[in-house]
């Protein structure tokens, strides 16, 4: 199954209430697959092509405010248009799932894979002090698994979860194990799980208001402290990172998404040449796996960050190890993807042959 198709199927199987989106390469198959599978005839899930990304994100905001399980998917230029919605949803503390299958930028850019939206996703692409949980799949199976994980975390912390994938993971096909079909939540279940949601005042409970507007500075300051407390809680509980061959490694590659897969091959090639190279693959980009990276880097002589960008995640790696080791960057840009030997050559050039 293709990565993008996997996202669509996983959303239906989770028991999603609605998808709102606007097509853009390289993730148009998400909407296309949903339209082909017609979940409105089976689970009752709504699939709607909005008139623009701005409309789509605000439909997601509205659905989330009602405690519904809603998502959208887009690619880089579309995600830029959604930033206002991201900030509003964060301020309103509503749970939603946002998917960005990144393509080469800036601007309208190319349609090929990229990871240059790392800062936008992890450092708050919209205005204000907020964070979304950012999950970085590197296989089609993770495209399936992170849909469920993303929603579980979003509802647990009342925050926005993001899947930050790249065009490679979206376009490639791999073997997947799909979860069982879950029923959509009933109105009663939503009332119970989301007592804050706007669900209609059947029992004349106190009024629920979902808004990001607060004209009293002191209340807004208290809101910010509450958001930050949630973020600290997420940082404490939810960092995830895969470590491969890091117990004995002299050099460490740090990469996420498809570059992590390509780096894994480069690591295997380096090991065949007799170099002890390990790989750390951040799965949550926010919260960044600071402790895991620090631990993996403890005894290494150097770290190579491989990104489809000019060096964005590298800043978090340097912060994680407090610049205690040499950290170098290797990346391709604009939609180009490196082959394994390019990464191996970079390892040689920057560390092994020095």
């Amino acid at each position, binding site marked *: 199954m293709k990565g993008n198709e996997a996202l669509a199927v996983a959303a239906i199987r989770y028991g999603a209430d609605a998808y709102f989106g606007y097509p853009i*390469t390289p993730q148009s198959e998400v909407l296309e697959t949903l339209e082909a599978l017609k979940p409105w005839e089976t689970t009752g899930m709504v699939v709607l092509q909005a008139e623009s990304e701005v409309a789509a994100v605000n439909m997601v905001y509205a659905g989330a405010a009602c405690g519904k399980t809603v998502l959208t998917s887009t690619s880089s230029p579309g995600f830029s248009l959604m930033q206002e919605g991201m900030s509003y949803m964060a301020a309103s503390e509503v749970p939603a799932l946002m998917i960005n299958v990144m393509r080469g930028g800036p601007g309208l850019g190319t*349609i*090929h894979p990229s990871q240059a939206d790392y800062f936008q996703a992890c450092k708050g692409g919209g205005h204000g002090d907020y964070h979304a949980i950012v999950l970085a799949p590197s296989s089609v199976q993770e495209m399936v698994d992170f849909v469920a994980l993303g929603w579980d975390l979003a509802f647990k912390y009342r925050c926005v979860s993001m899947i930050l994938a790249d065009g*490679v993971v979206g376009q*490639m*096909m*791999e073997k997947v194990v799909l979860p069982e079909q879950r029923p959509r939540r009933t109105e009663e279940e939503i009332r119970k799980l989301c007592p804050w949601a706007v669900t209609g005042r059947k029992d004349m409970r106190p009024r629920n208001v979902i808004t990001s507007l607060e004209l009293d500075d002191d209340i807004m300051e208290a809101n910010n402290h509450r958001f930050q407390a949630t973020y600290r809680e997420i940082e404490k509980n939810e960092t995830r990172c895969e470590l491969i061959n890091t117990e004995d490694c002299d050099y460490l590659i740090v990469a996420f998404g498809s570059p992590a897969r390509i*780096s894994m*091959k480069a690591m295997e090639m380096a090991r065949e040449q007799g170099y002890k190279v390990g790989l750390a693959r951040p799965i949550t980009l926010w919260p960044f796996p600071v402790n895991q990276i620090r631990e993996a880097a403890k005894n290494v002589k150097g770290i190579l960050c491989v990104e489809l960008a000019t060096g964005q995640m590298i800043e978090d790696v340097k912060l994680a190890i407090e610049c205690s080791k040499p950290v170098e960057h290797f990346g391709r840009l604009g939609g180009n993807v490196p082959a*394994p030997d390019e990464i191996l050559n970079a390892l040689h050039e920057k560390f092994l042959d020095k």
Partner: protein
Amino acid sequence: MKEEIIIAGFGGQGVLSMGKILAYSGLMEEKEVTWMPSYGPEQRGGTANVTVILSDERISSPILNTYDTVVVLNQQSLDRFESKVKPGGVLIYDSYGIHNPPTRDDIRVYRIDATEATFELKNSKSYNMIVLGALLKIKPMVTLENVLRGLKKSLPERHWHLLPMNEKALQKGMSLVKD
């Protein structure tokens, strides 16, 4: 077992679907598989290629530098990928439209006349199945039975009546390979 393959040719030759059927066939044998296409505007009338990996173990990179097996279906693809065959690996090419045949002597080179065979079968749409048949004769990485199961899985039910014709094309492709 691990087999790293690239199939390259013109858009419309069925390169991507041939790779897909191969990947599904691997799936039927409980193998790990990846299928990574070139995607974008170059698929419309231009060149297309797909990397397929079949393995007993977890697959690292879906993108490769060199391949165990390279299948090329036009001159451009031959020029681009001949140097990417691992030493001792296999290069399969369709002779149709090739004016500069491969020159390497450290690999096994197979010429198959697949385009001509489509004229014989009077069915140009079965082209990629002929090529797949030849590939499987040279490198029996999956059984014919599982290819047919993979084919059934990748075709919508309304096209299942075409399965016997595809099997015939696979057999034809196998018969094209001479040692």
